[in-house]
């Protein structure tokens, strides 16, 4: 059998030299005491845990060097748990190392390959069994079985259809339409052009019917960044320049790469940096990508002012905001 105990042939596997605890009774006694102390430390940990849980208030903070102020209850429960677990382990290992038998034994390995007789028997059994099915002969059963199994595979997939709606045109639509006011976020206040100084940036959301309860799916597409520059700093073609207003330019805040909020505006360089993957967009050139993995500039929102002087969108975005997808027409 494969796992029989074999006494070691001393000429083959050298036995180890005896440990101190094997030959010296004082050493053995000491090792016992050490194991006992370790178990004892575990007990201390358990007591610490129980004490901290029941008696220490959760708003007490104590100062630990390097770590600063720490919550005493949390620390007590944590260190207590750590000690109670850790020292049981150390005690058991120390016990095994010093006091348990040191003898190594040998297990033999057998070849995994089954014997030829076993293999032949298996082949015979399988052949007989398969012959009993006689699928080759029974063509009608074979075809109808195939049809049933094939059809049977469809319902499980179909039952998952209502996991979600079809994408449709949803990814192309935001709440920005002609005449939609730009509102501060948070606060939902309308903005006059004169509210923005040169070099200022503000995040805006569109005015909608219910502004207290904007769904997160809307916030994943609607945020727009308003940036004010000096008009002469723009390097835009006339079509894009017409979409600005007195040096104020608006871009979608949702990164065209993977949808993070592009919000780092560097006033000195007029660059927008996305912190996720470091795509960098040049605001003076209609958010053209100048560094990083983003492949498309940020969509620009066409803005103007309404009769009362508040900033509004003149039209919806002329492309989908956010990351790319197969159906996106990016030309």
């Amino acid at each position, binding site marked *: 059998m494969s796992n029989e105990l074999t006494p070691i042939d001393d000429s083959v596997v050298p036995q180890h030299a005896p440990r101190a605890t094997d030959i010296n009774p004082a050493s053995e006694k000491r090792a016992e005491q050490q194991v006992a102390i370790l178990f004892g430390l575990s007990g201390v940990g358990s007591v610490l845990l129980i004490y901290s849980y029941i008696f220490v208030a959760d708003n007490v903070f104590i100062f630990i060097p*390097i770590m600063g102020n720490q919550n005493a209850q949390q620390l007590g429960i944590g260190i207590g748990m750590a000690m109670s677990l850790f020292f049981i382990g150390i005690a058991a290992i120390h016990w095994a190392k010093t006091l348990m038998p040191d003898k190594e034994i040998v297990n033999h390995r057998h070849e995994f390959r089954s014997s030829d007789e076993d293999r032949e028997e298996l082949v015979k059994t399988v052949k007989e069994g398969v012959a009993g099915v006689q699928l080759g002969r029974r063509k009608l059963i074979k075809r109808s079985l195939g049809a049933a199994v094939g059809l049977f595979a469809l319902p499980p997939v179909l039952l998952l259809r209502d996991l979600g709606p079809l994408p449709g045109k949803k990814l192309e639509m935001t709440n920005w339409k002609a005449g939609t006011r730009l509102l501060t976020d948070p606060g939902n206040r309308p903005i006059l052009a004169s509210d923005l100084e040169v070099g200022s940036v503000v*995040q805006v959301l569109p005015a909608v019917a219910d502004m207290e309860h904007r769904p997160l799916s809307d916030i994943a597409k609607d945020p727009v960044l308003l940036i004010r520059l000096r008009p002469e700093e723009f390097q835009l073609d006339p079509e894009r320049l017409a979409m600005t207003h007195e040096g104020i330019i608006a871009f979608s805040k949702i990164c065209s790469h993977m949808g993070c909020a592009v919000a780092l505006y560097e006033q000195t360089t007029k660059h927008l940096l996305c912190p996720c993957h470091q795509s960098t967009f040049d605001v003076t050139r209609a958010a053209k990508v100048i560094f990083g993995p983003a492949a498309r500039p940020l969509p620009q929102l066409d803005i103007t002012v309404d009769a009362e002087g508040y900033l509004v969108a003149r039209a919806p975005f002329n492309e989908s905001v956010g990351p790319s997808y197969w159906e996106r027409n990016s030309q």
Partner: protein
Amino acid sequence: MKRLSRYRRHKAAGPLLLIIALLGIGTTFSVASATVTETENVFARSASIEEGKQIFLKGCSSCHGLNAEGASIAPSLVGVGAASVDFQVGTGRMPMADMSTQAMRKPRVYNEEETAALAAYVASLAPGPAIPGESELNYERDGNSAEGGELFRNNCAMCHNFAGQGGALSQGKYAPTLMGVEPKHIYEAMVTGPQSMPVFSDKTITPEEKLSVIKWIKAAEAEPNLGGATMGRIGPVSEGLLAWVLGLGLLIGIAVWLTTRAR
């Protein structure tokens, strides 16, 4: 010497020597590169525009021009307001130590009176943001830390990190840590938009909202690390490092002990 050299082939000799060498190099470096503290000017005179102009001509005009009109290496200060000067000089950023990527916060060169004089002079050149007074900075009373947190995450966290620890901008620029900054300077920075920071005008973030932001920052600064020591509140990068170094390191150490024969 002979006694020591007997251990030169000890298995701990290598690691020990390495640790000694590292400590030695490290201490030598930090001692040698310790900067000499600037001597403070002691001019106990009241603030005045003329006062400020003199200080300006001596310490600032070489870069910013004799009439603060600016040059290729430094912007014009006409219209930046007293708040800008109070911020830049008060945090030690100006005078700039070297023309590197951006001015860094350092011990201030000019004392309070001199800073006030400089601010008064620059304010006299053209109207600009004023230094906020004490009553305008009562963030404990007028601010709301929860609202401040929301504002912070909307407008500040993308550069300064979720806990105000600072973050990277492009080309080696950075948004500095907000820990240990005076409330007045935080306010002034929001209003004036120093260097790469954009301007957060009072119409888009109202003065009360600015105080809420300051209140939140100060609360975050005062808040102890509730779960244990952090490695600078910078997120999963430091946590992963700790898991490998401390977690796996400790466990490997114990595994080595476990599998070694007792003697």
